[in-house]
């Protein structure tokens, strides 16, 4: 219909491959977008060589936030943690393959914000993590 809701987004929203919860896990983090109540939490398992062994997200919210989370989990599996730490806004936009206005950008970046707060071991997720 239009590039904002490319099939891939709707598909990942309706049939996410990485929704769930890993137990045991090495990293857990959760946060929400106060503007719309979107919620994302992630669990991650890490290999001895500091790469991502497995990753899952859970939560609720709009198609953009949930599809981004699913795409992001898919993307990071197998990647070195150091590389995960470098991910930024543009990487998410590339995964989604679309452009977003400032309000929806927050939805798209929620999972990355949660992920980075988790891998950096921070107490709080801040917007500056994904700028």
């Amino acid at each position, binding site marked *: 219909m*239009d590039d904002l809701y490319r099939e891939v987004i709707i598909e990942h929203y309706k049939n996410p491959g990485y929704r769930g919860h890993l137990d045991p896990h090495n990293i857990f983090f959760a946060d929400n977008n106060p503007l719309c*109540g979107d919620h994302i939490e992630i669990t991650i398992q890490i290999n001895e060589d500091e790469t991502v062994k497995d990753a899952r997200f859970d939560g609720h919210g*709009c198609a953009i936030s949930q599809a981004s989370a699913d795409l992001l989990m898919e993307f990071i599996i197998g990647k070195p943690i150091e590389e995960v730490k470098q991910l930024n806004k543009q990487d998410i936009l590339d995964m989604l393959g679309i452009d977003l206005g400032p309000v929806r950008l927050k939805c798209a970046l929620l999972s990355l914000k949660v992920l980075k707060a988790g891998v950096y071991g921070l107490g709080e997720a801040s917007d500056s993590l994904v700028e």
Partner: protein
Amino acid sequence: MSLDIKAIRSHFPIFQRETSDGVPLVYLDSTATSQKPLAVIEAMNNYYRRSNANIHRGVHTLAEEATALYEAAREKIARFINAPSARQVIYTRNTTESINLVAYTWARANLKAGDLVILTEMEHHSNLVPWHMLQAERGIELDFIPVTETGLLDLDAYQTLLARSPKLVSFTHMSNVLGTINPAAEIIRMAHEAGAVTLVDAAQSVPHLAVDVQALDADFLAFSAHKMCGPTGIGALYGKAELLESMPPFLGGGDMIKEVKLRSFRANSLPHKFEAGTPAIAEAVGFGAAVDYLASVGMDNVTAHEQDITEYALERLEEIPGVKVFGPSAQHKGGVAAFTLEGVHPHDVAQILDKDGIAVRAGHHCAQPLHEKFGIPATSRASFYLYNTKEEVDLLVNGIYKVKELFG
């Protein structure tokens, strides 16, 4: 009489634009802010091109013209709400500042720890947070008139609350989410019987209904120009003269004073006492033009037209499977339809509609506690004003079907 909508739409330059190539604007977000007729835009334009000067103390031609325009607008606004005199109309930035002005001056001069302020569960954040702040600072108590399942205020519960001798009852005349038009005159009468002062958040009523502050017997009444065809940056607070006169000033500075010594000052008389510094002069001129425009259309015509569209919109929306509209039936309601669509987040609804040029708002609409009450984080909201048409409702409904298909 029914409005000549085609003529009315032609007064608003923005309807000439397309949101993207070949896609005309379907603006269903007037509850957030209204569009502006050419008459308002041009009034400000002319002000800046011909009469711009600082007001009140100037002797020169421009200063006198600017002062006259600024004060003439106040007279118009006073007439529009039937205020007994223009000096009871204080210019502010918006409804929010009007309410805060009362909270900072009247309330801080009159409320002490333990004093009760009654609000409602359907308030906009603007009529919640100022009281939260006063609660934290002063230890006043807050209680809330409950909202029923159908989106009306529970007046029996209100009667019970009144037994606790509140000092203030502050409530919205019309909900910006449910659309509920509250029985303001009755709420005020009951408050007065209990000895309370009243503040009406009229952000949504003055733009859409004929509001008469004397018929309501309101003590304070707050509204914004930008929601009633006027500019951003200006709003108003109406108050009863004896209350406004008894209140300490709010912001200190130029124009709000009679006399200033190095270590003291004497406050000016109304309305200047509450207007510190160079005010929003061009915006006052635009506000006056907006009131002229609405008066020329006729507020009863505006209301009737919105009622008509709203009835139609509720009918059409409710026939869509999965759509749930919040709030009371059309007869208790202004031109607002906040809804959820099963399985689709309001942000997605709004964004997909936007691709067809349809502007609706998604979120909690600055009424988070109300959304919490109904157990939802957000809604999509379509709202209607004098320039909207039933064809636009049809476009909205078609758009929602498209969303369903996409997510089906």
